[in-house]
């Protein structure tokens, strides 16, 4: 019971503030997939920083159950009731969320698509990274370091998620480029640390020699590293997302590299586009961030606490543009 009161105590003032805030400036509703994956935190912080710099207000909507499709749909319906100025949208599932996007369109609320490219609906713009080339580049970097030969395993993410499909496709294509590299197994770790660790442990039982590990995200990569350490075995490991712990692991030489998905910048640009559109300023139609492989040589800029980072200027952002805006009204 105490907890109840405590919760409400923290919740209601916050709520009242946020409703009050609706009065002045634009309110941007930012949808992300879950509260648990650090990646989406970087997106959220990016959005916050950008909005602050432009004097707008951000409200975050996150399913209470991680990646819950029905819940994000409900949240969209609820948000439409509140009519925010604009929406920055990371679909929990790029196909299943299309009806939600269409509802947003029907409600005439401008919306920017971030991270996962929605399979349908009208958007001001798409801001994301190309998972495929990200996977490809990072994998290449690993395989080159391995001298183009050896045994590797893949730790897949959540089956059916767009990010996972493309990243793993990238991994496999990279492996095909090196004929002396042997793919021993490709098992699912569902982007989970513990599963990454346990799957790796089990794989090590059946495969005495593993030289490289390609993990579809950093959490699994770190998990795999722990597994290797536990068994006193060495292998080069790569992850994806360029999260803080990945950067630390790179510093300490445990992790070879992490493909930078750069959620922070995605959050920034997504929000900037939304706000600029509201203010009838020029926007871009699509920004697909170039893949950067964070490694021992270039990790410095990523080794900064999130909220201390700064968004790119609009000019820099516009320079990354890969498409001009598709007119929506």
């Amino acid at each position, binding site marked *: 019971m105490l907890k109840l009161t405590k919760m409400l105590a923290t919740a209601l003032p916050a709520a009242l503030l946020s409703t009050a805030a609706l009065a002045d400036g634009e309110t941007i509703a930012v949808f992300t997939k879950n509260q648990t994956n650090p990646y989406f935190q970087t997106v959220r912080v990016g959005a916050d920083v950008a909005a602050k710099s432009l004097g707008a207000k951000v409200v975050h909507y996150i399913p209470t159950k991680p990646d819950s499709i029905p819940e994000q749909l409900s949240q969209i319906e609820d948000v439409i009731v509140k009519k925010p100025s604009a929406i920055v949208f990371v679909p929990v599932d790029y196909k299943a969320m299309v009806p939600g996007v269409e509802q947003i369109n029907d409600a005439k609320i401008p919306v920017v698509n971030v991270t996962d490219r929605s399979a349908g609906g009208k958007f001001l713009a798409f801001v994301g990274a190309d998972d495929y080339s990200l996977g490809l580049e990072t994998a290449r970097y690993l395989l080159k370091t391995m001298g183009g030969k050896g045994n590797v395993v893949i730790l897949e993410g959540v089956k059916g998620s767009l990010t996972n499909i493309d990243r793993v496709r990238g991994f496999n294509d990279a492996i095909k480029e090196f004929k002396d590299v042997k793919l021993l197994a490709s098992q699912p770790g569902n982007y989970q*640390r513990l599963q990454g660790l*346990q799957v790796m442990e*089990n794989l090590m039982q*059946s495969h005495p020699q593993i030289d490289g590990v390609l993990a579809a995200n950093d959490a699994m990569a770190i998990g795999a590293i*722990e597994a290797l350490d536990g068994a006193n075995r060495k292998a080069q490991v790569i992850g994806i997302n360029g999260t803080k712990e990945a950067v630390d692991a790179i510093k300490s030489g445990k992790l070879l590299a992490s493909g930078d998905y750069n959620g922070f910048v995605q959050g920034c640009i997504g929000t900037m586009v939304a706000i600029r559109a509201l203010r009838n300023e020029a926007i871009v139609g699509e920004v697909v961030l170039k893949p950067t492989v964070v490694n021992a040589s270039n990790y410095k800029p990523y080794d900064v606490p999130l909220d201390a980072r700064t968004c790119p200027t609009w000019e820099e952002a516009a320079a990354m543009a890969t498409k001009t805006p598709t007119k929506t009204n």
Partner: protein
Amino acid sequence: MSVAGDISTGAPRLHLSQDMQQLLYRLLAAGLLCVALSIATDAFFTTNNILNVLRQASLLFFLASGLTLVILTGGLDLSVGANIGLSACLAATVIKATGSPVLGTLTGLTAGCAVGICNGLMVAKLRIPSFIATYGMLWVLHGITYYYMAGETIHGFPPGFRQIGSGYFLGIPIPVYLMVGFLVAGTLFAQRTVWGQQIYAIGANPVAARLTGIPVDRRLILVYAFSGAMAGVASIVFLARLNSAEGDIGEAMTLPAIAAVLIGGASLFGGVGSVFGTFVGALILTLVLNGMNLLAVNASWQPLVTGVIVIFAVWLDMVGRRRS
């Protein structure tokens, strides 16, 4: 008069020798699994893999062993997984802040235990059905943890501390020693202490237990506190193994933990079950997972296989029960 002959309303708790028979039936299930796996892949029956399985089973066992006591009283604790999450995050924070693993460990255990006591109070004093009380607690804990962690992770702990999870002693992983320790302690507590006996009595008939002068409320609070504390233990080993803490660790462990207890032959109606049975249950579940990885079973099939094996194991147990 059980004209209906409804077995599901808790088969009679059988005395030791027959309890042994029960264990044999459960061990048989585990044995079958091992044999099948060793035939299927030669990677299975190796010292390394056995130790590997044992270590993976330990986490589940820590969680399930505490849960066993709760289920013995006819209750249920759905909050253990969420409890791990919170305890781990708090412990991690303390370790980072103070640099002292001891303090951190204490924090983890205390946090876990505190949550358990809350559950106990809700069940014993507020008379909320344990299923709901702990289900509500699960959400509350997730809420607090997410709010507190804000999607961040805390990682990088002192090597000394890491030993708890990833260290070896005489070639055997530390967690395995811990598991054996808690297995013995738990069995002794349940079978060889007055409190343990009273817990069985409460599960068998709470009303009679109260009218026999057993302080039912206090014992209930005790078992939920234990369950919470074991979640604390699990969270510490978890941290030490994964070297990092997130909000959602352990989320996926609640149902497997319950499954382990039930496969171990406990009855949700209370008064029936044993810590050793739970150990076997945890072992079976882990073996299934390990086997599926070794055989590189397609991810899609893994839940299906697990489900079928859970049902089969329990059915085998029921058959054994009806036999004796």
